[in-house]
Structure formats: C-alpha cells, structure tokens
C-alpha cells in the first residue's frame, strides 16, 4: 500500500523547440536512424503506459498575425529557428515533477532539443469558452 496518495492525472503539454533541420543537419544517416528509433521508443513507451495522449510534429512554415486589426501578418520561419515550436506531446500524468522527469528522458536532448513543460488548465483567466459547446471535456478518474 502506498503511503502517499497519488495525485490524479492531469494534462501537460511538452513543446519541442530547436528540433528543426539545422539541429540535425550534421548527423550521419545512422545517427538519424537511431534518433528516430529512440524517439519513437520514448513516445511508444509513454503511450503504452497511458501517459501520452497524443503527439504531433508541426510544419516549420509559420504565419504570425498581430496588430490591433490583425493587419500585421508575417510569414515565418522565425528569424531564430531555435525558437520555433517543432512539435508537441500531450501527457496525462501525476504532476509537474513527473512530466519533467519524462521530458528529461527524451533522446533528442542529446542533439540540442529544448523541451518546454506546461500544465494545461481547464479555465481561461479571461473566462473565455475554450471548448466547443456541448462537448465539454471531463476527465474521469
């Protein structure tokens, strides 16, 4: 019997930065293959444990919209490609510590990958409705 109560799983996001072509250009074909294999093993392991919900690479082509009327539209990629988010993984884990520990095991770190760990929150501080009506997500434990 565990003496400390396990916290209920909560959603966390891992954002991958510095995962673009520049980062992996210098790798040999064999090293690339190893990275894909180990990266997949990391993700598949988490899926098997029910800790990873989904993951997705993102196209590096970026469009940034800003300005009061949305008139400022800039085509990316970012001037600093390190900053661009190259992909994400959504976790369902017991807390920030566990999410961090999972991120620390990532094989891409050795090649310069940067991972940002963020907890997802059900409530927006502005009170904006962030879910399509009628399909409110409820996490059942």
């Amino acid at each position, binding site marked *: 019997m565990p003496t400390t109560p396990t916290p209920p799983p909560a959603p966390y996001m891992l954002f991958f930065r510095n995962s673009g072509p520049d980062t*992996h250009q210098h790798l*040999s074909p064999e090293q690339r293959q190893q990275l*894909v*294999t180990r990266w997949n093993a990391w993700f598949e392991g988490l899926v098997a444990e029910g800790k990873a919900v989904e993951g997705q690479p993102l196209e590096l082509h970026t469009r940034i919209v800003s300005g009061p009327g949305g008139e400022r539209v800039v085509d990316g990629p970012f001037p600093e490609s390190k900053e661009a988010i190259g992909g994400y993984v959504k976790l369902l884990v017991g807390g920030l510590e566990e999410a961090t520990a999972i991120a620390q095991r990532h094989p891409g770190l050795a090649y310069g990958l940067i991972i940002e760990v963020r907890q997802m929150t059900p409530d927006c501080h502005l009170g904006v409705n962030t879910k399509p009506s009628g399909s409110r997500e409820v996490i059942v434990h």
Partner: protein
Amino acid sequence: MSPASSDRPAQPAQLVEHFFRHETGRLHGALVRLLGVHNLTLAEDVAQEAMLRALRTWSMGGVPPNPSAWITQVAMNLGRDALRHQRMASGKEPALITHHEQMTATPAVAWEAAHEIRDDALRLMFVCCHPEVAPDAQVILALKVLCGFSTAEIARAFLSTEAAIEKQLTRTKQRIRDAGIGFELPEGENLTLRLNGVLASLYLLFNEGYKASSGDRLLREELCREAIRLTELLIAHPVGRIPRAHALLALMLLTAARFPSRLDEQGSLLRLHDQDRSKWDRALIARGLLHLGEAAQGGDLSEYHLQAGIAAIHCMADDYASTDWARILRHYDELHRIKPSPIVALNRAVAIAHLRGPQAGLDAITAIPQRDRLESHYLLHAVVGELHWRLQDERAAAESFRRALSLAHVGPEQAFLARMVERTTAGPDDGRRPAAWKN
C-alpha cells in the same frame, strides 16, 4: 506497469537496419535522373532535406507503413521545386518549365516508378565508377552518394580529415561535370568495359575495408558490407548479371565469412592456421559458394574467379593441415599469368612453401620479378621471417620480423609481429610452432 499492447492500434512501422543510409543511394539515383548528373550536389542537398523532413515527421508522428515511398515522394517534390527555382533563376522561358512539369509531375504507375528507381541507383553506380574518375576518388564518391556515408565517417575510415575528403569530393564532382558524363546504362561493347570498371571499383571498396591497414575497424567492416550490398544490387539487374560479377561477389562473401576469426581477444591478427574455424560464418560461405557456381557459367575466367576459388578452398578445408595447397598453387599460377603482380607472386610462394618446403618458398620469393616493389611492404618480411623460422634459422627470422614490424601500420599487425619477434628471439623452438609448419 505497462499493459499488454495487444489491444492497441497497429504499431508504427520499424525502420530496417541502415534505412537512412541505404535510402541515400536510391534517392540520389532518382534525383539525378530528375535533375541531371551535373546537378549531383543539388541532388545531395535535396535528399538531405528529404531525410531531415522524414526525421522530424517520423520521430513525432511515427514511421509510415512504407517509409521508402514516403521519403521518395518528398524528395521528388523537393527536387521539382529546386528545378523550378533553378530554371527561374537562369531565365529559361516558363513554357519549358510547364512542359517539364507535365512530363514529370504525372503520377507514374507505382510499379514502373519502383522499377525506374532501382535502375537509377545502378545508373548512379556507373557514374561513380566512370573511367574518367580516378579509382580512389570513385570509392570515396560511391561511399558518399551511393552508401550514405557522411564525410566525417569517410574521413575516419581513411584516416583523413573531413576537409580533405570534402575537397576531393568537390573535385570529383567537377570532373564529372567537365567530362559531361551521362546518366544512362551503357550498352553493347561499352557495357563490358564499363562493367569491368564498376567491378574494379567495388573490389577496391571491399579491399579498403578488408585490409585493415588504417582507421576505425568497425567502419572498415561496414565498407566490406557496403561493397557486398552494391555488388548484389548490380547482380540483381540483368545488365550486371554476368559470371564475373558473381565471381566478385563470391570472393567478397567467402572472405567476409572469415572476419569473425581474424583477430584474437587482444585484437591481435591471427594467421589462417591459428584461426578458430568454428567462428567462420557458414551462411556467408554457403552464399559465396552459390555465387561461385553461378560464376562458372560460361567460359570467362577472371582474376575474381581465381581469387574466389582460392578463398573457397580455404573455406572448405576442415583444418589448416588438410588444405588443398596443390589446387591453390594452380590457381595462383593462373592468376599470375592473367594478372601478374608482386603480391600475387608472394602468395604463390607461400603455396609453394607448403607443398615443397620452406627453402622452395624462399627461392620462389627471391625469383619474384620486381621484388623491390615489395621491400617496403611488411608482408614480404613477415613471410620471409616465417620461412626462416621453419628452417630453424632463428636469427634470420628475428631480423625479418623486426623489419616487418617497423613497416606495419596498424595495431593488430604490429601486435602479431611483435609476438613473432619475441618468439624467435626467445631461444630454441618453444613448442608453439604450428604442426602444419613442421615438415
């Protein structure tokens, strides 16, 4: 902890061993067909970009069911983009671009595409091994564009620097552009000539890996494996399916089969009679013998036939003592007739020593024409030392082994020779003289 994954959706596909490396040659072939031989560097850049996209997408989204088709599709699309850019930049009229796009962008029948791409890799092999390119440069270019080795790996395998390899590759590609080498499979009389060039280059590639005279050992065995793979690729095509190619492949397989026993636990080189024959790779030997059989179809008798024949005799002997030296000598006689060289003559002398005694071997060595070309090679002195030792002439033996030691470059060879020097200077026969040598 982790539940049984049987209820999970299908596992993402796994990449076969060396997928990225081997895909390089296929992609380069397909891209060079699209972009032209003069655009070899552009083809490399495009293939590189396609690989990096695959890496990004597959590492976060899993490997697609047919990774090879996926990456080819991406590479060809990128190639067409690159071509469009290049033509726009050079001011070619748009009509031409449209025409080209209609020609190439039409989705081809899948079978035909796969067929084409297989041919493309072979065409690229003929480009790399073109007689206009120097033999050493051929091997390095083939490693880069056909085998997917990075310049860093090539530099490590050849004990060179990345900058030097890079420079040589640039020169080679310039040479290919200047010579206007085309991207077609040679035909008719030209085919035989060009095929001989390809075989010679593959042989050289294998030898680079086998001779172990410098560089990273594991990488060198990779060179041998690549030479085998490319020769198999050649034989898979009707154009390359000739007895001589089978003979070369047999030679490679029968030689590679003995890799596992070449070194002892200390990494010291083992002579044939000290090798543990149970470590030989029986599957490779079987494949080698199969190709040797194929090689015997027809009347061609090349140097590869003879060398493969010698390798087969060694592989089929149960132990060193029962080796058929008479047959080996006949093969060396023939080899020396069609391709005389001091090294062949030296090997022939070893066979003579086994048949007629050490003095006959030494006499044969003295009689080698152009023996001075061997003087700087450690092997000559190692063999002479061995023969003197068998004649109980410890002093002459020690002198030769010392000479050999001063000429050897790699650890395993040096370790072996140092042991021999020690043994010959240790006094009378220490009982470790192999039985086969006592006659």
